[in-house]
């Protein structure tokens, strides 16, 4: 599978990146070289292997997978602190450029 400029544009769009012309060319070249290396995974027989998403899945001694906490209210970040680091805020909400044009 060879990555083309069309793939780069498609993936950049999914990833919310714009990328300059130079960056797009560079990424096309890099992704092709990395994926060519990754393609060796195809030679491994994984027909009876369950995918491992978390370390707890493989049953290390005494470890319960994904413990759930009690569904109780806990303290959360005070509102003013939650918005304090925002690039633009009116103190209550985050401000962003207009979403709907008319």
């Amino acid at each position: 599978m060879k990555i083309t400029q069309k793939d780069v544009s498609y993936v950049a769009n999914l990833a919310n990146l714009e990328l300059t012309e130079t960056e797009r060319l560079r990424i096309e070249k890099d992704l092709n070289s990395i994926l060519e290396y990754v393609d060796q995974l195809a030679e491994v027989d994984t027909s009876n292997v369950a995918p491992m998403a978390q370390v707890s899945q493989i049953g290390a001694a005494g470890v319960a997978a994904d413990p759930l906490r009690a569904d109780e209210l806990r303290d959360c970040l005070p509102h003013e602190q939650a918005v304090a680091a925002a690039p633009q805020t009116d103190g209550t909400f985050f401000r962003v450029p207009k979403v709907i044009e008319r």
Partner: protein
Amino acid sequence: MPEDLDLNVLTVSSARAAVQERQTTAQALVESFYGKIEAEDRQPGQINAFLNLTRERALQQAKRMDAIVDKGNPLPPLGGVPVAIKDVMVTRGIRTTAGSKILGNYIPPYDCTAVSRLEAAGAIILGKLNCDEFAMGSSNENSAWGPVRNPRDLCRVPGGSSGGSAASVAAGTAVAALGSDTGGSIRQPAAFCGVVGLMPTYGRVSRYGLIAFGSSLDHIGPLTKSAKDAAIILRHMAGRDPMDTTSVDLPVPDYEQEIAKPVRGLRVGVPKEYFPAEMDSEVRESVEAGIKLLERAGCEVKPISLPHSKYAIPTYYVVATAEASSNLARYDGVRYGYRSPNAKTLAEMYRRTRDEGFGAEVKRRIMLGTYALSAGYYDAYYLKAQKVRALIAQDFLNAFKDVDAIITPTTPTPAFKLGEKSDDPLAMYLADIFTVTASLAGIPGISVPCGNSKEGLPIGIQILGRHFEEGTILRIAHAFEHARVSAAVH
């Protein structure tokens, strides 16, 4: 500050003792460290390990420690020990950038659990340490704030991504440091700079407040001058944290007692896959000599095989980048961090913020990860890599039926030159070839200095252990340090 207190050799125990026994005050000790940082780290061409000095917070904590000593009370276990923190761990009220422009002015509203636990045990936070952007890199050249230089040779990289952490400990500008390890980012720089670096078991130390890269692979751990220091620090930050559901509720042993136990009779495996024919001959000789020392100390050395090792790098770069592409979606210029001023619409704002805020390697990994997760490629790449990951983990579980620990080189070569690999991402990724396997399996690993190349560059030996058996690898590391000292004497 008494003349006989050499900051370069100060350890966790000796720093605490110096304050407790009034050889110095914690405040004077902190000022000496800041003096050393100003003299050796901050000028152009110097090490550049520190991004930010947290003087006010450090001196407040130092005052608290001095007051304890003044009252004649014993200091807490890390009382008065000056440490520094990789800038991927958030610190309340203190700028935290993850080495990225996109978080250039970010002031977090809370503390990382590992950091607050060290402070609760008396440690003094000197400042925040440089690293590769979002911990993505093996040379610290991907920092938005300039590369870190290796204190052992300023023309060379310190390794990465915890390059500032390893460099500060090696330079003696901090007694110990915290780093993070996703594919080798504690152990590889520890090897390059000639210090000890411990990646604990996944789940042993809370990740709360660690800026996420690959959540199923991210670990926090200490970089120190000795295995004993790593043991002390691990004990005081390990354990269940309700804020991280993957942190595990297991008892935390007293690792200082663990390391004092004898290593005689322990079985250590040497995997043939980690000694390929083409490997650097100085690294091979140094690590093989290290294995002989362990044998002489009473360990039983056994050849073993970890057959899926060769697939670890491709597996890692699919799993880690897929997780990264998802984790880094949060940087959109809305809630915190940088926002591009050059956008009129919301969609433009997202894109330009990310285009202008992220560096080249981070964009490359977001693109790779997004591709691996995209429709039509998910099964071929992401799902396939998760299955091979299971096989790599199974290799270790099988091996640990016959051995108590596994010994390998930490890196294929000693530290390379600045710029040497920065234009070839694949060559850079291969710097992690011996460290990614443990990250994928979630087992603990430690790198300990085991020798020097002819050019005087440090070489590291890696010791891997069973899940949650940090005590065993720390014990072997500690015995190894002693064996090296007595071998040098005789």
